């Protein structure tokens, strides 16, 4: 019992540390990739090729004055970034990073929790994370922040539906809501092949869900200054920032688990395959970011309700009929 607890705590600490570092270096990768796509160099000055830039940024953010504007709704204002951050981070508990392996004679699962409703858990937490944004916008008592968070809530409602329907496809194929079992069901065939439509819908919805370009109306710099976090400074701002980038990594992980076969792959160890796939999905994100302009709000809504949701429902329908015929057709 004690050993299990210790192993669990060690796993949580390792995953948190790796996660925080990868979030920091995701900003570096973003600036480098977007820079090179514009034929610039990106950060170059702090450390070799600018490798210490994220650490310098972190130190700067922590050492800033923690400003509390006078007219804000104080408790809500303080809780909002914490909700965003905690929800995104705790969603990582169910991500299976690799298969079971043996270490010092004991079998170790490289994930924190193996629950049978992992997909629902992920969807629920990513929605609750949105509350942080809405609360921040409301509590800031600023028109830019409020408009940003209103857009965020509208966007969340319209894209969560499509995302949920897209996820139903792989769940039907695997016959389970457990992410580990979904990965194990992909040993022969990655679900991106039978569920390509769902994969595309999931990627689009995930970009909208994490408020990235071209769906970053929530923090449209040209109209809303910075959107919901205009009034935030110092560590509170850093929490939103961490939450946003951690959410990017989270949806990339889920895309890997649901569609790209999780840790399955030849020759290399499980965890390496997982990381390669997550980096590939993240690269698609940054690639889209440097290619596409921001959508107008009505275009965003039209894309969500008129295109993505009908296609995803049709996909669920076709998938379930095919799965039913294949599984129960013989008798």
């Amino acid at each position, binding site marked *: 019992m004690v050993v299990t607890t210790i192993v669990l705590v060690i796993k949580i600490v390792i995953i948190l540390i790796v996660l925080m570092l990868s979030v920091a270096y995701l900003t570096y990768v973003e600036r480098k*990739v977007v*820079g*090179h*796509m*514009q*034929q*610039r*160099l990106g950060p*170059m000055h702090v450390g070799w090729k600018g490798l210490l830039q994220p650490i310098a940024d972190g130190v700067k953010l922590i050492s800033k004055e923690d400003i509390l504007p006078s007219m804000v709704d104080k408790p809500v204002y303080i809780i909002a970034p914490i909700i965003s951050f905690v929800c995104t981070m705790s969603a990582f508990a169910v991500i299976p990073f690799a298969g079971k392996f043996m270490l010092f004679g004991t079998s170790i699962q490289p994930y924190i929790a193996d629950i049978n409703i992992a997909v629902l858990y992920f969807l629920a937490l990513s929605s609750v994370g949105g509350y942080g944004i809405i609360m921040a916008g409301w509590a800031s008592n600023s028109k830019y922040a409020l408009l940003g968070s209103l857009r965020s809530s509208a966007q969340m409602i319209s894209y969560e539906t499509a995302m949920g329907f897209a996820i139903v496809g792989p769940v039907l194929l695997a016959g389970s809501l457990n992410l580990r079992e979904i990965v194990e069901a992909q040993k022969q065939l990655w679900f991106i092949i039978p569920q390509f439509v769902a994969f595309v819908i999931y990627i689009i919805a995930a970009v909208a869900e994490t408020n990235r370009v071209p769906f970053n109306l929530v923090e449209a710099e040209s109209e809303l200054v910075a959107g919901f976090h205009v009034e935030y400074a110092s560590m509170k701002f850093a929490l939103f920032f961490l939450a946003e980038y951690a959410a990017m990594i989270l949806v990339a992980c889920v895309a890997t688990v649901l569609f790209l076969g999780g840790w399955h792959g030849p020759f290399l160890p499980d965890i390496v395959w997982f990381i390669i796939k997550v980096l590939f999905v993240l690269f698609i994100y940054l*690639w*889209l970011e*440097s*290619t*596409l302009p921001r959508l107008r709000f009505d275009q965003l809504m039209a894309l969500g309700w008129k295109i993505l949701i009908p296609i995803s429902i049709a996909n669920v329908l076709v998938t379930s009929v095919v799965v039913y015929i294949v599984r129960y057709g013989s008798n």
Partner: protein
Amino acid sequence: MKNIFNTILFTDIFQGLGITLKHFFKKPVTEMYPYRKPVIYPRFRGVHYIKTNEEGETKCVGCYLCQAVCPSDCIHIETDCGPNGERLVNKYLIDLERCIYCGFCEEACPVDAIHMGRSYDVVARDRDDYVVNMKFLTHNIRRSCRGTSSVLYTFIHNNYFFIIYDNQEKSCSFNIMDVVNFF
């Protein structure tokens, strides 16, 4: 029909993605300016210099043609009569701040004395320091440092001309190598 086909398959978006991916693998065009000197093209017109003859005396004969042709009126010449009846250049001042580096003086000069150099980074703390005289314009060191990559930057202060060379071993430390009094 083709239009519908394009809309369904997002051809426009994939075209854009292709272009960004192409640029991703191109060489960045950023100049790391203070650390690495940019390439100065051969016809670049920088701060002037005046040629000297074998004895080290200026080739300028004080004909006033450059002063006359100067569109920004930044050249000021005063001449005197020498012992053998020749013209002596007493004063030859160029206000580098007024100069527009058009190169007309170089074209007008009948004795091939004034030339446009290749240094572009002569800076000073004071506006008066930008008014440079014959000694500055003819000085060998200033001419020798034109366009060489080891010169980090140059500046004028209180009629002294400082040339700062790049320390090749440690790229961050500076060596002040030459200080020229041109007053």
